[in-house]
């Protein structure tokens, strides 16, 4: 059955990027205010889900040809390694370092290794969410 989704598809093309950018904003906002990898990841998954609704599984697979399980593994690996590296300096697991730096263009910013850990969380959430949706949505 072919349905006419012109309105949905056209708006999706715009809205997808808005949600995606907002998810990145939320991801970085997690620094000192509410937000972070988990919420950011869920929002990104939401954006991808919208793509799935507007187009179909095949098109999205073609546009995003990742194996999402590898994304999960990559995320876990990043999270594990960033929390394990303090062990090299005999510090407890999960210890994070932070400091204020004067960066070109961005000016005075504080950098935190927890962001890297959060990146891992973000990838795990996106990967796991998409894997679940593709598994259930795969055979209808």
């Amino acid at each position, binding site marked *: 059955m072919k349905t006419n989704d012109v309105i949905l598809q056209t708006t999706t093309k715009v809205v997808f990027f808005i949600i995606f950018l907002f998810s990145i904003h939320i991801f970085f906002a997690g620094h000192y205010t509410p937000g972070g990898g988990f919420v950011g990841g869920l929002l990104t998954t939401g954006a991808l889900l919208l793509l799935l609704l507007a187009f179909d599984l095949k098109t999205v697979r073609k546009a995003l040809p990742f194996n999402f399980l590898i994304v*999960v593994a990559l995320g876990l690996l990043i999270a594990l390694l960033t929390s394990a590296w303090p*062990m*090299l*300096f*005999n*510090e*407890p697991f999960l210890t994070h370092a932070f400091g204020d730096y004067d960066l070109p263009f961005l000016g005075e910013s504080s950098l935190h290794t927890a962001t890297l850990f959060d990146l891992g969380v973000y990838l795990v959430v996106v990967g796991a969410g998409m894997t679940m949706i593709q598994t259930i949505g795969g055979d209808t």
Partner: protein
Amino acid sequence: MNMTNLLLFPILIPFLFAILLLFFKESVLMQRILVMTGLFFSTVSALYLVFVVKEDGIQTVTLGSWPAPFGITMVSDMLSALLVTTTLIITFFVVLYSFYAIDEGREKNFYYPAILFMITGINGAFTTGDIFNMFVFFEVFLMASYVLSVLGGEKKQLRESIKYMLVNVVSSAVFVITVAYLYSIVGTLNMADISVRIQEVNQPGIISVIAILFLIVFGIKGAIFPLYFWLPSSYAAPPIPVLTLFGALLTKVGVYAITRTYTLFFLQDISFTHMWLMGLSLLTVVVGIIGALAYFDVKQIIIYNIIIAVGVILFGVSLMDGTAMEGSIYYLIHDMLIKAALFLLIGILIYVTGTSNLREMGGLMKQYPALGWTYLIAAFGLAGIPPLSGFIGKFLIVKGAFQAGHWIGAIAILLSSLAVLLSVIRIFIYAFWGEPKPTPERSKTRYNRMMIPAVLLVTLTVLYGVGTEALVPYMSDAADVLLDPSAYVNAVLKE
């Protein structure tokens, strides 16, 4: 070499290798190499951890460098170090066995990563010093166990694993509720801190309610008397190596959690809480015996023996007596090893006969003498015939029970040994004696290769029994911490 994080290695190495395995989904050979490397390194680190705990006392690390009652503390005392080591050794042998007992479809579908994730969760639950973190680690290994129990997607597996999941989801919800109650009373989640605060708030009534709730939660996972109902059928559904891991490790996490909470937190009204534990553990032994003697299915017989062992161990714990506690720890580790060995042997038995029904087996002694004798040794070990491994644990538990004046319990445990012996010897008599029955053609090399890990594991249990004397200092260290919570508390809070 840095040592602050040593106690995390048995948790993190399996986790790292589980992640690495996810990248090699298609290559079975690569997966086998990686999983063995990972287990080897984690076992070495765990053995070293036992050594360090023996030399320097309880090891702690607080994640993220937060000060002790606020951050998540990981604590490794002798009991958890020993359990972590035993877990890894058993997994090593079971994985070796899986190479010949698991089909390629499962191997390519995250069988090994799921095992390693489960080990991560189990070792984490043994090591953590934070009650909510324990919940998280429980969920980690439960999630992996759901995957393992459903992997393969046979009709029976699907049916049983949904029930297994439902029971565990409900028990996890009760776990969260109990932690919430506990938090509202003591305002902390650090187990050492909880132990101190419970004495300070002095509310024996409410604390007893929480104690019973914890008994329900961990009792569901550990299969004590009224709550064991889910265990036999859901453990019997997955293939033998998975059954071995579940039977040897998962219920023991519940037993460990009951032991830990009942020796660290709930010491105010022992005559109430520990009496419940004692009564239920004796009833657990009784229902286990009924099941073990009633079935003609080899899997079910050994599965009901898990339930008996849980009862015996918890009976020893509930006495709160030095001798009995040491006996319980001896018996706990013995039971993990011997159950793993027995399940592996049962797996070979089922492989060579093609059935798990005892009535359809017979006269295997001529064809498979090695299997018969190994099984007999393992069976005697389980029943506790000296000098094999089950003897010393049960002996100390019974001795402790007589010392404490609980002679009914002591006699019940003694009689249970006879029933256990009968139930496992029944398998021997039916399967190995009598008229040979037709068996399907089986590959001799595969049989031999499956025998290697089983024989090694049985040898290990024999050594555990014969070398009891050498293990005494380790066991008494473990029992001392359980009976004297202040040692645990001081190590964590560094007072």
